[in-house]
């Protein structure tokens, strides 16, 4: 475990060094981080312009959801997204071999190789939105509340990670589908709507999306001091079980790869 931490520390350093070394890339990813955070805020303001109350969420509450969404997805993009992009490219070009011959856990090598530092700005924008809304709503928190929120958020990120891993692992069979990553980016957007909206849609495709509704909403409801124990337990259970499931699935896929690839 300590060895993995040391390697991750080294990766953090390398990522920072290459970010600084290639300025244009830095500017581009900074622009896109800011732009998407701003878009998520604008779009929710425009969408709720005529509607004080949707699926049981008030306008302020929905904006708060967007704030939490930017924090959680921001952290996720910082740590994981680009790694999944790399994962599907590696599979697409048949370069999984170089990962498999390293004396290190393959899932670790595929999940933590790249770090997108510029997403920090998105997290900060999310925090700013949340602070603004919570102050406007006049809600008060103890340190313990904040800690609990952070814990829930981490569970949310873990759930998102497991869902992505699950889907991207499919590319080991369907090597052409490297655009599944783009689908996942879009599916992330589902997390910023009230869960009830997806649950009540009641058709086949919306059921697939239900796990995503557990990523952002429960921590946000916690901030609103409205969380039901069911949601919290639901998130914890989903997060842990999907994590285990996705890891097993990934291992199974590697086994398939080494017995059938050519």
């Amino acid at each position: 475990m300590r060895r993995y931490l040391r390697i991750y520390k080294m990766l953090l350093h390398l990522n920072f060094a290459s970010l600084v070394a290639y300025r244009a890339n830095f500017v581009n990813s900074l622009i896109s981080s800011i732009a998407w955070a701003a878009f998520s805020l604008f779009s929710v303001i425009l969408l709720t312009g005529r509607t004080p109350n949707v699926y049981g969420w008030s306008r302020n509450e929905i904006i708060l959801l967007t704030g939490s969404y930017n924090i959680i997805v921001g952290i996720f993009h910082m740590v994981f997204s680009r790694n999944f992009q790399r994962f599907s490219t590696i599979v697409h070009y048949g370069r999984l071999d170089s990962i498999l011959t390293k004396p290190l856990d393959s899932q670790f090598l595929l999940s933590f190789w790249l770090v997108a530092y510029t997403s920090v700005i998105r997290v900060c924008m999310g925090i700013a939105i949340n602070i603004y809304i919570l102050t406007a709503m006049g809600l008060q928190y103890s340190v313990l509340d904040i800690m609990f929120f952070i814990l829930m958020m981490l569970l949310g990120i873990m759930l998102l990670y497991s869902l992505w891993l699950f889907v991207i692992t499919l590319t080991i069979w369907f090597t052409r589908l490297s655009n599944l990553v783009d689908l996942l980016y879009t599916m992330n957007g589902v997390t910023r709507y009230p869960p009830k909206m997806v649950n009540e849609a009641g058709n086949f495709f919306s059921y697939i999306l239900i796990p995503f509704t557990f990523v952002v909403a429960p921590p946000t409801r916690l901030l609103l001091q409205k969380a039901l124990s069911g949601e919290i337990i639901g998130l914890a259970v989903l997060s842990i079980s999907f994590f285990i499931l996705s890891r097993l699935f990934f291992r199974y896929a590697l086994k398939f790869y080494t017995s059938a690839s050519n």
Partner: protein
Amino acid sequence: MFLPKEGNNMRILRIFLLHVQHIFEYRSRSLIWFFISLLNPLMLLLFWKGAILQNNGAGTTLPYITSYYLLLVVAGAFLTAHVEEDVSEIDIHEGHLSQYLIRPFSYFWFKFFEEIPYRLLQGLYGVIVCAIFFSFFGQLFVFVTDPFQLFLCVIITLLAYFLSFYFKMVLGILAFWIQDIRGLYQVIEIVMLIFAGFLVPLELLPPAVSHLSFIMPFAYMIYFPVVSFQGKLPLDTMLHVIELQCLWLVLFVAIYQIMWRKGIQKFTAAGQ
């Protein structure tokens, strides 16, 4: 080329067929692209459904909103060309443009006919989804009925496609001058999401934003084809839209031609 003499038509047909075949090979991939373009409008539709039911209409009606977003899926798939990254990354920065330049066929039209099979396939998926929806919720659907209006709708749609294609080509060949252009593309994508009507029907936006969106060209690429097929526009407005589309098109064509001439000089001078 050792091909027998044949007209431009034959060549176009060949480019076209080659890419149809390519699509079949990548059929599953294009299905995923379609899901991607489907997901956001459907989320927005669900959101509006809740908003309308809980807020007494919220200034609109469910049939209007439903048909708007469903037509938007088709329009988004059919009318949004994705050429800019191919042009900038592969053709210009990696230098594949040279291969096009030595062929006796205009680069622009090459790209144009390469793109069409993809758009048709994506649009077809969209039409299928709409048809399924229509069979279930026919009463929630608002659609143009008058044949002359329908004819104008087709013209508006064609002009919209040319407009959007020229716009994307202009964005693509910007890469002659700008090395790292992806940040800019992201910003433009976001601007389009808002001002082309992908997010909210433009007339439901706050008045200032709504007004701004009609001054920009993006509404004429996506929003107007959608609302005209809904049969919401009176005849004279439709004619006015066509007028404005033509105006924008002339402008884009001029910009493209000028940029292409300057850019190609730069490209060949650099000896890439």
